[in-house]
């Protein structure tokens, strides 16, 4: 056949993401063992999902509530927060890769300005995931904000009026009216955030290539590396199925939550 068949496109990529600890990923090793026991994926789960998903949901709600008010300028702020949505992932990676640069990045400049020590961010295994998380939040929290905004606008103002007449303060109105009525949106946003967290790839590929010390090695990068760099299609396809199962679990949980409400 064509020359392509013996030379999958991935090989000629300008960069090769490096596998964690060289040959640790072997097709002989059962995939389940790799995926569930691998400390890297455990790390990923803890350090990517929790720090990203929680702020993504909380911040999405916070931004929506802030910008749902009838104040001058909210439309402009919404536009600014939404703008990163249309920025492609390579650009996000290039931009934030520099912002997080140890020597010349803006983040460290402002950190030192307020008296903190500069952080090696993308070169430090402890800080690489938080850096990716911040990047991801900046890039995609707007989706959550929009869903929450739509849900907030569906809440009848009469409910708030009535509660105010009955003497409920802003805090009580939030806990007893806003939050319960936001539950479907909350379920949707949480599920989407977690699912998209599992699917993170581009940021990690451009900014850290999975490093340092595999601290940002994500499951989609495993698929990319295994299938299109090492040409082991079997394990890669199996990893895809695992990703599907994870996604399904969260999708079904979300649907159940929506129905229960």
């Amino acid at each position, binding site marked *: 056949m064509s020359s392509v068949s013996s030379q999958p496109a991935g090989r000629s990529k300008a960069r090769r993401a490096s596998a964690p600890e060289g040959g640790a990923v072997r097709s002989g090793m059962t995939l389940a063992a790799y995926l569930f026991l691998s400390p890297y994926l455990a790390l990923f789960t803890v350090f990517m999902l929790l720090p990203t998903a929680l702020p993504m949901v909380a911040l999405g709600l916070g931004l929506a509530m802030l910008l749902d008010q009838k104040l001058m300028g909210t439309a402009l702020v919404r536009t600014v927060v939404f703008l990163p949505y249309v920025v492609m992932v390579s650009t996000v990676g290039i931009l934030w890769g520099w912002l997080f640069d140890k020597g010349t990045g803006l983040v460290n400049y402002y950190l030192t300005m307020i008296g903190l020590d500069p952080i090696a961010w993308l070169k430090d295994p402890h800080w690489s995931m938080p850096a990716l998380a911040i990047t991801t939040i900046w890039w995609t929290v707007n989706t959550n904000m929009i869903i929450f905004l739509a849900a907030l606008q569906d809440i009848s103002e009469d409910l708030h009026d009535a509660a105010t007449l009955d003497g409920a303060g802003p805090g009580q109105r939030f806990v007893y009216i806003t939050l319960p009525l936001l539950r479907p949106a909350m379920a949707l946003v949480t599920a989407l955030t977690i699912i998209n967290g599992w699917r993170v790839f581009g940021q990690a590929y451009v900014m850290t290539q999975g490093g340092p010390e595999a601290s940002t090695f994500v499951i989609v990068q495993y698929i990319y590396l295994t299938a299109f760099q090492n040409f082991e299609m079997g394990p890669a396809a199996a990893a*895809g199925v695992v990703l599907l199962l994870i996604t399904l679990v969260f999708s079904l949980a979300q649907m159940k939550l929506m129905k229960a409400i």
Partner: protein
Amino acid sequence: MQDQRSSRAGQSLGGRSLAYVLMIVVTALWGAPILWMLVTSIKPESEIYAYPPTWIPDVPTLEAYGALFQRFPMLTWFRNSAIVGIITTVLTLAVDALAAYPLARMQFPGRRIIMGVVFATFLLPYELLFVPLFLGLNSYGLVDSIFSLTVPASANAFGVFLLTQFFQAVPRELEDAAIMDGCSRFGFFWRILLPLTKPGLATVAIFTFVASWNNFFWPLIATNSDETRTLPVGLATLVGGAGMSMKQSVLMASSVVATLPTAIFFLALQRHFVRGIAATGIKG
């Protein structure tokens, strides 16, 4: 108190001031990276790494843009992205509208099953499909072609889902009357249904184009030459190689060029984006 909504954060002056302070902080945090990208792209070499960093270049210059287009196949990548985006959008509109019409407006055995299957693909993480898709295209020698970047993307459950909802909202009497007057099913679809649902078609078109423009993972796999490489993949090669350091002004210029079309799109058509996300919760 005439404005209940503003009372949610406290209608007091203090509450409102706090809201404004937060809004300024949010604008700064989300706007600064974009502004930094723009500012750096027009800085001369001597100012890029100036300490302290400057937000207004002393001597603005376009030399980074010149270097970008001279040294890298930016125009080719840009052209590829535009071709792929336009073909994908046209194909998606055709496939999705034709799929949504019977699903939304006809009764036939198996309709619910087909609908279920189509919408279930919504839940699939598309990374799952890349290995079989690659193997399939490869066996026909179609990898590294415009075909591999456009046709597989056109069967898009998001578009079918959104258009089904728009099509269902058109009254049945309209279709009955049109057919009574001798209009064919396709005539109704083409001359009445599509013009009536333009906002839905526009939303699908915009999302499809932006998603295609920004799509990274599949073109990364499916292209291996500058002849077919799209912008996101091309840009990623600019930061390649650990030792190679490219001038930040050139990188930022590349980012500006890559972002400009979708940013203009977005600023002009913001409400379509908001509607699409609110309806389906997708990330492009």
